[in-house]
């Protein structure tokens, strides 16, 4: 997907801003979500690789982090290589992650004692350079810590996802603090896709991009990750059932 605006003055300005921000080197690649509706609103048409991103759950998801974990698993599932997942409380359920596209053979779990240790492990993972991505469940992420992680991700070209997960709902206001991360997402659960019979359809999320460097924020109603880590566009939003047909729905 081509850049939406290719005015030379704007390109020059972007380069100057990038130089001020310390983003050296060639422009990093992006990982498209495979949904035109989503990709065209993201800078460069996808999720920037080799950067730090933040994901949190909305509502009760701020404390359980279940939808955010699926969202992160879906992103990392589409990257080639091993994934390091650092946590403080070990409640990830590997079969559930597999159904979001991330098989157990691709994830190395690290159980660290506290937030500081999790951040240190995440930084080690990012600096190592041969991982596909590093995910970490963290509650507090200061500006300094996020800048440090972002630089580590940039240096080694590994994508980092800080999965923000708080102990109490009230602490989620922390998500408004400034960050050095490339993007900041909030994933909230929505009632699942309606079915003509009793039962649960494919899970739906309200995916909000709260902050994006050189991009605009938006929110979009999407269907949760399928078995390959791809999000879906709800049939009633896309305008026809064909878009959702043929996809095996999980989660």
């Amino acid at each position, binding site marked *: 997907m081509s850049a939406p605006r290719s005015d030379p003055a704007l390109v020059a300005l972007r380069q100057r801003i990038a130089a001020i921000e310390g983003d050296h080197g060639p422009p990093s690649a992006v990982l498209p979500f495979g949904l035109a509706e989503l990709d065209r609103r993201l800078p460069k048409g996808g999720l920037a690789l080799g950067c730090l991103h933040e994901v949190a759950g909305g509502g009760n998801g701020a404390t359980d982090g279940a939808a955010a974990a699926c969202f992160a698993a879906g992103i990392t599932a589409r990257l080639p290589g091993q994934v390091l997942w650092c946590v403080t409380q*070990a409640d990830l359920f590997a079969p*559930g992650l597999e159904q979001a596209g991330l098989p157990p*053979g691709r994830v190395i779990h690290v159980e660290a004692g506290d937030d500081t*240790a999790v951040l240190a492990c995440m930084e*080690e993972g990012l600096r190592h350079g041969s991982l596909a991505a590093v995910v970490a469940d963290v509650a507090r992420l200061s500006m300094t810590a996020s800048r440090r992680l972002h630089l580590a991700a940039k240096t080694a070209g590994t994508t980092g996802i800080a999965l923000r997960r708080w102990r109490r709902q009230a602490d989620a206001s922390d998500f408004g603090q400034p960050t050095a991360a490339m993007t900041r997402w909030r994933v909230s659960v929505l009632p699942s896709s309606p079915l003509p019979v009793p039962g*649960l359809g494919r899970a739906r999320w309200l995916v909000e991009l709260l902050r994006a460097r050189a991009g605009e924020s938006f929110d979009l109603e999407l269907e949760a990750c399928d078995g390959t880590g791809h999000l879906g566009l709800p049939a009633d939003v896309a305008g026809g059932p064909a878009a959702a047909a043929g996809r095996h729905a999980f989660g």
Partner: protein
Amino acid sequence: MWPVDRLRRQDGTPSDRPLVLAGRIGSRRVVTAVDALAAGVGLRPGMPVSKAQALVPDLRIAPANVAEDLASLERLAFWILQRIAPIVAVDPPDGIVIDATGAAHLHGGEDPMLEALTGRLALSGVTARAAVAGTWGAAHALARFGGDLENMPPEALRLPAATVAGLRDMGFGRIGDLLAQPRAPLTRRFGPELIRRIDQMFGDVPEPIDALRPADLIETRRAFAEPIAAPETIARYIAKLVAALCAQLEAQGLGARRLDLICHRTDREMQTVRVGLAVAQRDPARLTRLLCDKIPTIAPGFGIEIMTLAAPITEPLAARQTSTLAPEAPDLSGLIDILANRVGAQAIYRFAPVDSDVPERSSRRISALAEDSGAGWPHHWPRPSRLLPRPEPIDTMALLPDQPPVWIAWRGVRRRIARADGPERIFGEWWTREAERIAVRDYFRVEDDAGERLWIFRAGDGEDAATGSHRWFLHGIFG
């Protein structure tokens, strides 16, 4: 118990009859060690052999072999040196002393370490008692006698038998009695040894442990003319020691699986650092990095005068041919080592599937560097991304036997169920556990008004009370 256990391990002597070991004291033949069976029928070390034979007719008697006992004990101490802590010494005739400073955290603390150690010894047929204390003397006494130091008998002081007998004659039945006495008369009567042992027990006199160093241990050592203390200096000398160690390893074609750095301080204290490696390594840069990560845990005190670096566990490591044509899988062992030395090796793992329908048993932790078998879980039913550590009881209103609840209340919040899927009946492991022969759980995937998807189950099939308590639990949260 050690001589008996050693004999059992080496000869495979069956344990159906009481066993005692016989040795000579002067011209008398006396029992030197007894096993648990023999102790149960009243035999004690020090008893004449003829008396023991008279007491127990079918007694099995083996000759005592003190030299072999000691050699075996040294081998056991080396095994402990490899696995538990860098400073280990033999405490003859039947003890091993371990300096656990800087090593206990690798095993999850002092108590888990002792438990693991005695458990592994028990598995290999060695009965062991272990205790942790601030000094060698106190730990020695606690492991053998237990209880309060002051209430222990004078035998706990590691004194010659004649001195102990003399103390008993004087009426000293407890160490506490000795502490209350003026020291000069005691020294005049029993010699300086008694007071020295008491001071060693209570830590008033240092008692360095002469660490066991097997002859073939790969080790480098550096003594400093001036004591060093600055972290940068320590890092520089670590790099030099590692380079020397790696040269030795390379000459023998070995790679290190474990490294022990021992810093001898000017005040005769020792600081130890132990790092483990997931695969054998002799790359100086990587080993230096692992050791330097641990510098903050070294307290240099008034300065370090000697540093030794040893590789107690080594493995053959041959040069490997690499190919520039076929891209190799990235080597993650360096990262795993760095993380393992930060958070502990047991905290880094992968999940592998287990053939069990019970969700909490459906995965097991395997080593992070284990081969990927490509196996996964069956995809028949959706599974949550977060599983609660243990199912939490919830209040519900539901029609039996197989309807999902109309509402549930979890952690004090009541939710109306808008949609549900289920039941998915999960049977216990009837082939391994008798208690789970007929136990079942009926799992439902429910969604409340707000769209939150939860995984709940009812213990029991809804009809037969023998299959479960029919209480409801919340077990997981879907994304």
